[in-house]
């Protein structure tokens, strides 16, 4: 029997509006690991997340995605999320009339078999407090008029309510002030079981970042550089970041062989 990893993406190609954005993507992430996804603007990082979530516009034209030994390539978004996928979005939409509180309620009720109730359970309230959200804030329509940093914290809060097994973070640190990056990193570590010994971690993650500052607080096993829809380079996160800082993306990819 083949032992499969938590997530196996093989030879994946994704098309958006008739244009092939991702090509030949191979990505393997095991239980307990955290990988970093780097790459210039427009290289296809978010596209990979959307495709993994099964958003209809992001059409898989080749390859497969195996998650928890199941081929999820053709599953609906809801099914994938039920299986344990989670995401924090780069730019989530605002939904008028849908309160953050209502959403948290549903998210936390979906993981157990708890019925959704009118009022938040004490655990969720405690989580919100940890992320510096007041009761009043939870009454606001989700993402409507949220500041950049509030959007990011609300995304992480929702993941905390959800507790997925594999989490994709799309630029959780962009536009966030230094103190809040540390706060978010702390919670991302909670989400990814970082308090446990590596061998005992159940949760895995894939994190997109541009500045990499957050990696000072969130440990990662491997980094991948996406260029023009291909994974051009993989290796030690710190070394790769250093190369990108010094040589730019192009330079980094050119000297990738030595990693």
């Amino acid at each position, binding site marked *: 029997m083949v032992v499969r990893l938590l997530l196996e993406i093989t030879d994946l190609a994704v098309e958006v509006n008739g244009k092939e954005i991702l090509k030949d993507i191979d990505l393997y992430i095991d239980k307990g690991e955290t990988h970093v996804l780097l790459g210039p603007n427009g290289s296809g990082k978010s596209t990979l997340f959307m495709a993994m*979530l099964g*958003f*209809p516009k992001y059409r898989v034209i080749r390859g497969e995605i195996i998650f928890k030994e199941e081929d999820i390539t053709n599953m*609906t*978004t*809801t099914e994938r*999320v*039920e299986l344990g*996928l989670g*995401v924090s*979005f780069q730019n*989530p*939409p605002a*939904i*008028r*009339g*849908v*309160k953050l509180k*209502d*959403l948290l309620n*549903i*998210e936390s009720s*979906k993981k157990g078999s708890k019925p959704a109730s009118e009022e938040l359970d004490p655990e969720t309230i405690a989580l919100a407090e940890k992320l510096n959200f007041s009761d009043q804030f939870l009454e606001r*329509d989700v993402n409507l008029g949220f500041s950049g940093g509030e959007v990011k914290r609300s995304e992480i809060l*929702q993941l905390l309510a*959800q507790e997925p097994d594999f989490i994709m973070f799309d630029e959780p640190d962009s536009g966030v002030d230094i103190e809040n990056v540390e706060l978010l990193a702390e919670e991302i570590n909670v989400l990814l079981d970082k308090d446990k010994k590596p061998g005992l971690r159940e949760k895995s993650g894939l994190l997109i970042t541009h500045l990499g500052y957050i990696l000072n607080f969130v440990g990662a096993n491997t980094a991948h550089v996406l260029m023009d829809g291909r994974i051009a380079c993989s290796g030690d996160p710190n070394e790769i970041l250093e190369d990108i800082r010094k040589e730019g993306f192009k330079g980094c990819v050119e000297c990738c062989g030595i990693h």
Partner: protein
Amino acid sequence: MLRNTLERAEKAKKKKAALGEDVDIEKFEGEEAGEHEEIESLKELPDKYQKSLLKVGVDPSEAGRAGSFLQVDQSKVCSNCQSEAIELMGLPQALEKYDWVKDYMWNAVPVDTDKYTAKTALGEPGGYFIRSLPGTKEVFPIQACMFISDEKVAQTAHNIIIAEENSELHIITGCSTGSDVQSAMHVGVSEFYLKKGAKITFTMVHNWAEQVEVRPRTGVILDDDTTYISNYILTSPVNTIQTYPTAYCQGENSKVVFQSILGGQKDSVLDAGSRAILTGKNSSAEMITRAVSKDESQIYTRGHLAGKSPDVRGHLECMGLVLSDDSLIYSVPELEGSSTDLELSHEAAVGKIAEEEVLYLMSRGLTEDEAASMIVKGFLSMDIAGLPPELAAETKRMIDLSIQGM
């Protein structure tokens, strides 16, 4: 009633309404005013009626209410008022009690508007009289209910509401039909008079049966420094509704707000508008509509702002979601400026549910249907401004209850 009024009503007996499908009034039967027995309190009503009342925001326990009025078919069944600040009675009783009440008849709504107003003037009397006394502010609302208990009934009501100088009056009205009624007609003429410095909030929930024809006729006359806020909620199936309340902002600094939540289901035809004639200096109007059409329903939302003096402001907003291919939303905003220095604007958007929003919720574990329903409910659950805190919370509950079925 004045002979002149009756003559005008006679002449308008066959006059079709300017909008909406023409209803054959003859198909329905007028009831007698004394048919149903009077009770002291809504608590005495049979359980099944109490449930229908609760659905339209009328609380049979009468808790937190300044007073209660109930008309069943054409009979005044209950009228009680605990507040010293407010007079509440049937309109016929008010006409008997006060000589001057007749002067308020048919000023805000012309008697010869159409055959429905004519029918109301010429048929059996009905309706209520509510008057808040000068300088009073009752925070608890009066609740009024129009109920149709029998098949094929033609119910008419003529309501006169007067807020005397510097008074504040809150009204909740619910309209409903017995569970075994399918087809009926309701005509409600409501005339509001706001004296200097007065404020009225009027929140109405409709929950009719599927074959009911509804033709409310509403006029509001506003004096100086007055505020009138109307909240209208209809989300259950009905045959046809056509309503176009008109506010006459005659007074300086008078202000009117119309907020409507419309949910079209089955083959309902909802034609709901609001109109403000802004003649008073610095008067203003705001109209906000949220409409969702399902099944084969048709929703027409109309808004008309007429600015006729300098420094008036008006804004009209209609947001619609079309949820099925066989339903439609038709939004007709009209702006009419006939003076300088006025500011009238409108904003309308009709479309489908944003896919991006559905996917966002799905990626948090909701199914597609759950996501769509959450978005629709959120869309309809607009915040109602201008109510005292307790009433705002209560109204929110009423709205939540009404949109559950959407």
